[in-house]
């Protein structure tokens, strides 16, 4: 078991080295970024402890996948498997629990810790025998796959919008929109096998345009329940709500282009940083979008002619 954690540490170190990042500086930067965001959330959002706890627990979702659980269960004895799951969940929720503790939110600390242990007991090695229906069936595949994989997280976004109405806090609703679109951006982090691009009888430019159009339409659908709900209850702030939806859709389009600009590699950390900077300073998109589009076109030219 000790060797397993040694291996995990090595994997992280190798990932950072591949991205040409200094492990020490990266860890410091991530810690500072995490603390900054946490502080901002607690300062500006009234239901921050609740949202923060949900974020903490949703960060664990990647650790409980069927493949991973089967691998661990098949490799280790049952008690060791449980211990590994508890430790891994613990490592992930520890920073969140620490920050909640710093803010004297003892009930939430207890809730997060207990829930993370309970989640480590859930195997999720079941096979889903029915497909979750999606409104995106005619246009594969990012939104269909992403929607099914992230349905609980997407419901969280909707839940935040409802919560904002219940507690009459508009900021939570906007945060819900941001969470929803952030989840959608993640749909584009996976690079499909080259075969699934090659099969399209299209030129690179029309393929990318098609993808952008699909992304925009689906992005609109996915944000619609939240924006409609918020617009109904906060009609005086409808422009503000629409602006966030518009921004969310724009970033979906940017993610699409960025994905194919580096395809078949997945978007790496440096490119991710570039996208994050553009989120903090949206006018940068005027330069970024044409640059990424041209790069994508060139990048796909050997697969689509």
């Amino acid at each position: 078991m000790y060797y397993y954690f040694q291996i995990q540490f090595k994997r992280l170190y190798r990932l950072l080295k591949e991205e040409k990042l200094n492990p020490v500086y990266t860890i410091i930067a991530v810690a500072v970024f995490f603390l900054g965001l946490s502080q901002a959330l607690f300062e500006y959002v009234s239901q921050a402890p609740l949202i923060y706890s949900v974020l903490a627990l949703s960060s664990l979702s990647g650790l409980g996948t069927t493949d991973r659980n089967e691998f661990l269960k098949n490799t280790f004895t049952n008690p060791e498997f449980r211990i590994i799951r508890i430790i891994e969940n613990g490592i992930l929720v520890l920073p969140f629990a620490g920050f909640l503790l710093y803010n004297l939110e003892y009930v939430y600390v207890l809730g997060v810790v207990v829930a993370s242990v309970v989640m480590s007991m859930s195997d999720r090695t079941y096979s889903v025998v029915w497909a979750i229906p999606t409104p995106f069936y005619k246009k594969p595949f990012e939104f269909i796959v992403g929607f099914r994989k992230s349905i609980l997280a997407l419901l969280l976004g909707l839940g935040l919008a409802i919560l904002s109405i219940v507690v009459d806090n508009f900021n939570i609703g906007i945060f819900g929109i941001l969470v929803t679109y952030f989840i959608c951006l993640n749909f584009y982090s996976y690079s499909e096998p080259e075969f699934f691009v090659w099969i399209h009888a299209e030129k690179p430019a029309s393929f990318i345009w098609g993808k952008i159009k699909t992304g925009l339409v689906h992005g609109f659908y996915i944000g619609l329940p939240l924006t409609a709900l918020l617009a109904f209850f906060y009609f005086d702030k409808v422009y503000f709500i629409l602006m966030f939806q518009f921004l969310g859709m724009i970033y979906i389009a940017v993610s699409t282009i960025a994905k194919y600009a580096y395809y078949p590699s997945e978007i790496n950390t440096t490119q991710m940083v570039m996208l994050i900077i553009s989120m903090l300073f949206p006018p940068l998109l005027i330069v970024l979008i044409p640059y990424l589009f041209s790069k994508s076109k060139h990048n796909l030219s050997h697969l689509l002619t």
Partner: protein
Amino acid sequence: MIRIKSLSKSYGDNKVLKEISLNFKPGEINGIVGENGAGKTTLFKCLAGLETYEGKIEYAAANLKDVTGFLFTNPHMLSRVTGMEYLRLMCNARHVGIDNIEEKNVFDLPLNRYADAYSTGMKKKLALTAILIQGNEIFILDEPFNGVDIHSNALILEVIQKLKELKKVVILSSHIFSTLDQICDTLHYLKDGKIEVSALKGEFEQIEKKMRKSGIGSKVEQLNLS
């Protein structure tokens, strides 16, 4: 000896395995055949303790899972982990000595390369090497010949024969009937989650005939190929 008694498995309303009863003896090679989706992998997962089930699986000597090596159809490899590290991890997890691993690299795999970058066949060979080094008593091999080159195929056949000599329990699935015919002592035909026929060596022909009957030839016209 492993005794499976009235084993059933459901996913919601979908009953994948229905009242399966089988015995697997040490020193015997047991084949499981069936169409895709018949329930072979689910049965294997139940045996390996990866799935919950109704019914009983009895094994006298020890905790079944701790002495079982399960070769998946597509073995899961952690990213950024070399073949050598994978083998060490698998040995370490079973508290098995990890000396001279290089000597046991019978498939000549490039152990210093990342295992997730291996081809399908190489991943399978690495995973098989791991469960062999672990010194298991029971070997569950889910389509061990799938995606593997001819030379390695022959080597896997040899390994399976050796396991038989060593009185290990071997349970495997394959779609290559000729191979099963060559090595298996017993063959079980799984259809729609039930054992349709079980046969001893020399009687496998009846299973092959039954399987051929459920072909898809008549449906080709539906494709309207031109």
